[in-house]
């Protein structure tokens, strides 16, 4: 496979209620990424955007962001999933051999609409919606309960994930201010407002405003643009059943298969030893444990026993993860940016020592229905 390199990236500061509009936020991210790489508008050959019609309040929602995203009279199309899926599309465009620079931008503004209410419309209108109130938080409640019951994991273990990620987020200047808390305790997490038992307020990755952008280039161009490219050496993606009732909620089969695909592509046989840092998209605290197990870092039900602190056995989410701010559609792309920063040594304040291989994941759907995994490596 031809090598595809990440040659630039930019993430705006995550805000719970941004004091500027969506156009400017997209422009800041894409312009910022281009400036970082020292490129111009005319260098862009393809643009992949990632937003959601429902979140943007208009149909064909990429149409309005043409100018802001650098897609004016350029080859452009949209992915209505997670930013990490948009990166996959961008990567495919590069691998087709027709493009020299792909811009991928993703994100949304959750301050403009009730995010969790919008996700009510994700359930099936015929078989699920009439019978009960199920949105993403309720579904997370189902999953957390099923996981705790099956493996005998206590709710304190979920709270510990929150404490770790929100403490890590406090060192990340771009994380959401409301999510940053270096002094959080397990008790605080369990005592916060209850959303859908056992899910409490602090266990939910707070939806916020934010856009991120990544630039991809084929090997030859990447080496011209930057002396520190980060290569995508493996990618895997998988989709689970749609109906909540049709799958085993206590594990993530789709992530297990996605990880297998990515490890095979990158030639990884022992993930826990070979991967130095992982950025996992955990929309809820328990997802970090379930996804960690599916990625092969721990046995089923034993995710809580793996030390994932910055100086631990395998650092997970040193940037704070999605719990450090979750702009709808953008979070997966931010995870990839954070993994890239760890490789290039730009993670100020939360840098993991000696990172050679990093893993980043994205997800979409209730109970992480669809998962995507990237393996990133540095070096020329």
């Amino acid at each position, binding site marked *: 496979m031809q090598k595809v390199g990440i040659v630039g990236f930019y993430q705006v500061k995550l805000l719970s209620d941004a004091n500027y509009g969506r156009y400017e936020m997209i422009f800041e991210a894409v312009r910022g990424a281009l400036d970082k790489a020292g490129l111009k508008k005319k260098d862009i050959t393809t643009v992949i955007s990632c937003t959601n019609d429902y979140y943007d*309040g208009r149909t064909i929602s990429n149409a309005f962001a043409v100018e802001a995203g650098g897609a004016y009279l350029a080859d452009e199309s949209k992915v209505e999933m997670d930013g990490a899926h948009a990166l996959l599309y961008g990567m495919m465009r590069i691998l087709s051999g027709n493009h020299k620079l792909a811009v991928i931008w993703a994100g949304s503004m959750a301050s403009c609409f009730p995010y969790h209410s919008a996700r009510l419309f994700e359930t099936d209108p015929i078989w699920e919606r009439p019978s009960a109130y199920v949105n993403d938080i309720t579904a997370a409640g189902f999953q957390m309960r099923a996981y705790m019951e099956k493996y005998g994991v206590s709710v304190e273990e979920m709270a510990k994930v929150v404490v770790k990620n929100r403490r890590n987020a406090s060192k990340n200047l771009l994380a959401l201010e409301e999510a940053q808390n270096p002094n959080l305790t397990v008790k605080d997490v369990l005592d916060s407002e209850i959303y859908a038992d056992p899910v409490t307020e602090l266990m939910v990755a707070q939806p916020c405003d934010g856009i991120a952008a990544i630039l991809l280039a084929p090997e030859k161009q990447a080496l011209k643009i930057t002396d520190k490219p980060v290569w995508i050496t493996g990618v895997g993606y998988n989709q689970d059943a749609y109906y909540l009732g049709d799958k085993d909620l206590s594990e993530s089969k789709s992530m297990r298969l996605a990880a297998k695909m990515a490890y095979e592509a990158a030639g990884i046989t022992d993930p826990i030893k070979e991967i130095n840092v992982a950025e996992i998209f955990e929309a809820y605290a328990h997802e970090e444990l379930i996804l960690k197990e599916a990625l092969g870092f721990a046995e089923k039900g034993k995710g809580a026993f793996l030390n994932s602190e910055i100086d631990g056995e395998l650092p997970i989410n040193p940037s704070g993860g999605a719990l450090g701010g979750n702009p709808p559609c953008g979070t997966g792309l931010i995870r990839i940016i954070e993994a890239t920063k760890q490789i290039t040594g730009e993670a100020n304040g939360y840098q993991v020592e000696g990172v050679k291989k990093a893993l980043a994941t994205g997800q979409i759907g209730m109970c992480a229905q669809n998962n995507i995994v990237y393996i990133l490596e540095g070096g020329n």
Partner: protein
Amino acid sequence: MSKRTQRKSMGYIKKDYIRTRTMPGSWYLSSYRFKFNITHFKPFQDKLKERKLVGLQCSSCNRVFFPPRLICGKCFVKPDRWVDLRETGRVATFTITYLKDLETGEVSERPVVLVQQDGSDTTYTAQLSPDVDYKDTYIGMPVKVHWAEEPTGGLMDIQFYDLVEDNSKDLELRKD
């Protein structure tokens, strides 16, 4: 790009957008018609009218779907064998929702459950009887269908699930 233009373009963002105006708006479609194939589910609906439950079995992998599904994703075929199911089932997992009454401000705790109907391999999103205290819900709790007074052949004929007495010892222990 020269450093000068670079500074200019980024400075532009930070300076100009200190204040934003929010435009209140709403975005909804006044109606939407969800269409689905009733011919395929007719036996299910006919049985509901008689206060009976049936699941749809995939003749390739033998999984029984309740509620019935149009396609078995695993085998990629239409399941076509109807099997009778009992009215009883067990709570596979649950959560408790806290819904606020907008007028009175009262918060009502309601358990939302996934019920695995005895004899089926999948679970169904449902509610428990209002008589059940939400604190008493547990995984493995035996439940029974509470039928609507006049079944019409729709999914809403299963109004909610009633609690049935639990005789199994190990589950009693777990409840404590």
